[in-house]
C-alpha cells in the first residue's frame, strides 16, 4: 500500500476518460475539477457558476453519477470516467431529453442547461418513470433564473415517457 502525494503548487499530469476518450492534462492539487475540464481539456460545456456546490451549473457525470465538479479537486479525478454535456449525444445530434428541452423552451440563456442535462441522465437511469414531485426534487439541486422550471419539468416528464416507451 502506498500513499499518493501531490505537492502544493506543483503541476502533475492527470489522466482520465472524458466522453469515452482517454485524455490527460496538467493540474496542481488545488485546481477545481471544473477548471481542469475547461482549461486543460477544453470541455467548455462545463459551466462554472457559484463555485461552492449550490447552483448546479457545473454538474457532470463521474463514474455514472451526477455530481458537482466545483467541489472536487483535480487529483481526486485520477482515472475517473467523466461525461460532460458534450458526451450526452453524438456530435451534431440531440438526444431525447435535449429534443424535449428544445420543444418545450426549457432553456433561455442556457447557462444552467448542461448541468441539468447531466443530472437528468443519471436521474432517469435510476428513476425511469418519475412523477412530477420526483422531478422537482431532483431539480432542487439546480438554479435556473430564466424559465421558472415549469417548462423543464414538462420536458423531462415527456422525455421520460418517450424513453420508457422505446425501451
Amino acid at each position, binding site marked *: 500500500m502506498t500513499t499518493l502525494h*501531490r505537492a*502544493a503548487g506543483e503541476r502533475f499530469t492527470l489522466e482520465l476518460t472524458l466522453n469515452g476518450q482517454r485524455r490527460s492534462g496538467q493540474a496542481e492539487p488545488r485546481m477545481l475539477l471544473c477548471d481542469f475540464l475547461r482549461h486543460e481539456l477544453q470541455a467548455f460545456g462545463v459551466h462554472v457558476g457559484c463555485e461552492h456546490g449550490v447552483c448546479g451549473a457545473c454538474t457532470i457525470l463521474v463514474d455514472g453519477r451526477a455530481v458537482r465538479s466545483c467541489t472536487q479537486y483535480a487529483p481526486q479525478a485520477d482515472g475517473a470516467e467523466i461525461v460532460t454535456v458534450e458526451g450526452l449525444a453524438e456530435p451534431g445530434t440531440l438526444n431525447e431529453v435535449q429534443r424535449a428541452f428544445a420543444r418545450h423552451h426549457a432553456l433561455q440563456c442556457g447557462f444552467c442547461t448542461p448541468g441539468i442535462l447531466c443530472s437528468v441522465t443519471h436521474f432517469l437511469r435510476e428513476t425511469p418513470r418519475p412523477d412530477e414531485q420526483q422531478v422537482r426534487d431532483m431539480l432542487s439541486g439546480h438554479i435556473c433564473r430564466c424559465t421558472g422550471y415549469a417548462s423543464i419539468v414538462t420536458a423531462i416528464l415527456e422525455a421520460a415517457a418517450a424513453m420508457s416507451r422505446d425501451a
Partner: protein
Amino acid sequence: MKPVAFDYYRPQALAEAVALLSDMGDEAAILAGGMTLGPMLNLRVARPRAIIDISRIPVLKTISVHSNVVLTGAGVIQNDALGSDVIQRELPLLAMALPWVGHFQTRNRGTLGGSVAHADPSAEIPLALITCGGTVVLQSRRGQRRVPAREFFVGVLMTQRRSDEIVTALEWPRSAPDASHAFAEIAQRHGDFAIAAVACSVRLDRLDQVEELSLGVGGVEGRPVAIQVNSFVGRPAGEIATDLSEHAAGSLTPMEDHLVSADYRTALTKVLVGRAVNSALEMIRQRRDHLQ
C-alpha cells in the same frame, strides 16, 4: 473562489491515513465527499496545509449488520445508503432522514461520516444518529475510541473529535420490528439547511401506551438535541402529541439568525414534533389494520 494551495495525500489504507493525520494534526483536513469541506476550501474559510483524501479507502465504505447494531463506514455515500436494503430494513429512521440531506447531486458524493464530522447544527444524519442513540467510532494512532453521539456533538461545527482522530464509522442500534419512526423538516427550499427538523421513534405496548420513545430536534440549538422524554413512557399514545410538542419546545434554547427569530424556531419545533409523532403513530395504526 479558489482554495489556498495545499498538499494532497491519497492513502489507500486506513492506517496510512491515521499516520498522516497523526503527524499533521490541525494542519491537515480530511476530505471524503467534499460536500461541506469543498465549499469551505473554495471560500477560504478553511485553509489547511494538507488534504488527506480518504475517499478510496475500501474499509470505510462497508455496511455491516451485527447482533444489535448496524455499522456504517464513514465513507458510505449518502445515496448508496438510501438505496441500501439493509438500511431500509434495519435503520428506517436514517432511511427517512436521507432524502432531506442536500440534493440528489450532493447526496451522490456526500458521505455519512462527513456529515457527522462536520456537525452542522441543522444536518439530518447527526440528528438521526442522536435520536436512535448511536455511537461515533474514531481512530487515531493511539487506538480506537467510541463516543456516544449524544455527547459527540458539542456546538456549531464543534465535536469531541481530537485533531489526530478520523471518524471511521457510525454505529446505529437496529430498529425493533414493531417500532415506528418519522422525520419532519422545514427549510426555505427543499434541500436547503433545515430551520428546524424533528426525528422520532416510538413503540407501543398492547394497551397502546408508550413503551419506548425517542425524540430529537435539529437546527434549533447549536447541535442536535435528544429531548428527555421519560415522563411520557406509560402514557396513552393518543394523547401525547400536544404535550410532547410543548415539552420539546420548552426544553430548547433556540438560535437566532438573520432569517429566523428564536420565537419562530420554537413555533416550528411545536408544529414539527406534532407532525412527526402523529405520523409515527399513524404508521403503527396502518400496520395493525394491515395485519387484521
